[in-house]
């Protein structure tokens, strides 16, 4: 089974990420069994069906957002998801960092929040700070163990963020 980093440890990844192929539409795409992470478009098109699967068959449900899809799109539905994921198609596209903070700090999302795509160990420290707690990173499983050190890359941080609501200046001994 593929591995992910979850709560700063290597863990098995049970989730299937549903991506729409070119000839598929949100309405017709087949939903495989098992824990399923669907794109926002599929969630919007098939809410009832997805909630039914979740309730009747106890199939965990997750949704993933692309960089342009803000947290507002799912803010009212957050209770329905075991997992919310944010896709980073390109390392340099940092919109997902704002998405994560808003989900955690404004909309109060408490379940698993995952970053996937073009992310690796050098982004872990910041991703962790904005509220992600699971990561599907590029590194091989071997290197992923080494990558865990990145969570402790810095001993302190100046700003408030999702994992530390108080900025340093409110914590610095004066």
């Amino acid at each position, binding site marked *: 089974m593929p591995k992910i980093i979850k709560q700063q440890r290597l863990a098995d990844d049970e989730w299937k990420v549903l991506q729409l192929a070119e000839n598929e539409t949100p309405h017709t795409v087949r939903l495989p069994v098992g824990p399923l992470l669907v794109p926002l478009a599929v969630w919007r098109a098939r809410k009832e069906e997805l909630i039914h699967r979740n309730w009747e068959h106890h199939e965990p449900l997750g949704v993933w957002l692309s960089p342009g899809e*803000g947290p507002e799109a799912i803010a009212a539905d957050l209770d329905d998801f075991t997992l919310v994921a944010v896709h980073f198609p390109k*390392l*340099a*596209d*940092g*919109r997902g*960092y*704002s998405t994560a*903070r808003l989900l955690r700090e*404004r909309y109060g999302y408490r379940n698993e929040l995952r970053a996937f795509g073009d992310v*690796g160990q*050098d982004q872990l*420290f*910041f*991703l962790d*700070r*904005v509220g992600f707690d699971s990561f599907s990173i590029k590194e091989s499983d071997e*290197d992923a163990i080494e990558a865990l050190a990145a969570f402790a*890359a*810095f*001993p*302190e*941080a*100046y*700003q*408030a*963020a999702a994992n530390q*609501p*108080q*900025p*340093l*200046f*409110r914590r*610095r001994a*004066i």
Partner: protein
Amino acid sequence: MYRYDAIDRSIVAARVAQFRDQTRRYLAGKLSEDEFRPLRLQNGLYVEKNGPMLRIAIPYGQINAAQLDKLAGITRRYDRGYGHFTTRQNIQLNWVKLPEVPELLAELAEVDMHAIQTSGSVIRNVTTDHYAGVSADEIADPRPYAEILRQWSTLHPEFAFLPRKFKIAVSGSTTDRAAIRVHDVGLQLAQRDGAIGFQVYVGGGLGRTPLIGEEVKSFLPWPHLLTYLEAVLRVYNRYGRRDNLYKARIKILVQALGVREFARQVEEEWQHLKDGPQTLTEAELARVAAHFAPPEYETLPADDLCQLAHLREDKPYGRWVERNVRAHKVPGYASVTLSLKKPGVAPGDATAEQLEAVADLARRYSHGEVRVSHEQNLVLADVPQRELYTVWHRAKAAGLATPTIGLLADLITCPGGDFCELANARSIPVAGDILQRFDDLDYLHDIGELDLNISGCMNGCGHNAVGHIGILGVEKHGEEWYQVSLGGNQGNAAAVGQAIGPAIPAAEVTNVIERLIATYLALRHAGERFIDTVQRLGHTPFRDAAYQAPSHEEDRRVRYA
């Protein structure tokens, strides 16, 4: 000046360790070029024509003698014995070697310096007025706020991958010497009903689309500084364009939405953040401000008599005082600008020996501190007047006393085609030509105040758009050509200059400048500066003179095609 505590130090040390590891993985082939690029850029490391270039941060232009000494040693050990001060108050080394950079950063960390976020699509080094704290026209000292912003922006986790670079400048005086309106965010300290706050401008910038920043908030009380900026940055991070490098700066977003709609979106975002934990406290402001408390000034007469005698007796000294010495808010003191401009040297360059000489001058005469100005000079802010004559002699011996501050020969230049990968044309030789031609001090003083700014490409690092005369390198048929503009201005009257006509070849630039100057001298009214005459008469007489017909038509076509 701000002194690091153990926490500040531990963060910089961790950054050095992190970059050492990243460099190791890159050199071992574990990180691809594409993966390594944003990491090295966030540590100030570019790859340029001559190899890597390292930009070292000088937060809001404040540096002390020990740091200058360290820089001098570093330029000798890791580079070719000199550094280049930039228009953003940083210093660049042009000849470093990648495998040695982690070691270099470790040495910098010994004196609390780093290269964090001096490039890349992040919040860059915050800049401010080089006369902060010593100006009579100051509303409040901008440096505590600049330091608070430095800490907030350093390794900000949400804004590490912005659409594009992001520059913030703060001015504490009624006269803007920090060019705040050509920054992504410009903060003007202001006072309202006895309270301190900021007038906030957004969306200024040079480069391909030079724009003057627009006001988004007329008064932001200081405790809200960070929450408000976080709202600005969040709106930009989410909605700034990422599809086109040239349209990715915040100014394009502000333009597309209109400043009112942009301000509304920021306001809406801010309502969620306002009064939250990032709201600044009196205690924090006091903690940081204490680092910038004025030094213990002596009680001195307003005018030092000896110094007045020297002024009478020694004409070259008088000239230097006229241009390079500035009044201080404390009687008997003055601020001295050490010039990094002289014929034969790239503007802004300082050798290791000069860095040490500056450190020595600072220790002896100015409480051990120095400021970097965005005009690429160095400033000793707190010199007793009685020492000025000695300072002048010592500065002269070190090649730092060119008496041309604010004059044509105090020109701003970017590194250009000699060093920069992005350049269309070289800028240093053009500056060199101009400095050579205009080397007569009497003539320079007669011409008077004039900002001449040169950039090697549209990115405008040499601030060409806000020069009274701007020179911009363009490429034509694989050759270096230059576009001349007139009427730009910085400060409170910030304006973007307009091109006066077709580009001209390198060999013509100095001639054109000469003709522009001659036109001004012929047409000026008493007391008018160059820019005043341009504003009164418009571009026509200048353009006509600049493009005056050479001997015959054929020649003209060749030269101005």
